[in-house]
């Protein structure tokens, strides 16, 4: 992926339906637990992956929660 791809991605955002930031926060712990259990998190919580691709802040929050919960 080159610089233009990244810029286009940031400008156009993810394709398809996505959760809002509030819905993302609401579901984040459940989503992370499903990921850590190797369950199909994207099927259980549709729209989360797209939102994480489109929202850098929620993406960072997700990565931190997953890293912290994985260490438990």
């Amino acid at each position, binding site marked *: 992926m080159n610089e233009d791809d990244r810029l286009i991605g940031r400008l156009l955002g993810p394709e398809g339906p996505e959760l809002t930031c509030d819905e993302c*926060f609401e579901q984040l712990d459940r989503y992370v*637990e499903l990921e850590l*259990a190797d369950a199909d998190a994207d099927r259980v919580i549709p729209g989360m992956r797209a939102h994480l691709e489109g929202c850098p802040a929620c993406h960072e929050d997700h990565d931190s929660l997953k890293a912290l919960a994985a260490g438990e």
Partner: protein
Amino acid sequence: MEEALPFAPAFPDDDSDAWVAALRTSGPARDAATTRLYELLLRAARFEVNRRRGMLPHLRGDDLDDLATQSADDALMAIMAKLESFRGDSRFTTWAYKFALLEAAVKLRRRAWQGREIPLEPETWNLFEAERPTPHGSAEQGELLLEIQAAIRDGLSPHQREVLVALAINGVPIDVLAERLDTTRGALYKTLHDARKKLRAHVASKGMTV
């Protein structure tokens, strides 16, 4: 035929039930649980501060620890106010961590941008120019960017343009922009989402695929 449900971990677990029961009770058991919860939140906040400390190279260890402590304080308040909303879809500790991580992340982003001007106009439109000094990508990408630039200029409302430019081009963190514009992360993301939808519709109308 109905598909099998994907495997999902079993919650609520005994430990989570015990947390909620202890926090809902009163007296010494509740005090002890609150103390344990606070320690857990402080650990989570310090974890986030350590992960992101590169954003704030000028802050000393004491300042960073103050930031973690404030985050744990605020997270504890939020959790106690929302305890009844814990549905047991995850471990209680994972649910609680997300509050501390959010508080710390927002404080870190805001501190990193403290005193900095928020660029609401593109710092340079060179990003979109077909003949850029250093070619970044293909000719097709260049044409797509020119169409996107036209849609940003002509198809968005002034507010949508400011939000899109700040967040997607100039890299302003959404929490920082929300604070400066006196709004919420959710409201700004909705504006960004609507702007992106218009841009996608514009490039589709030109027969371009992304």
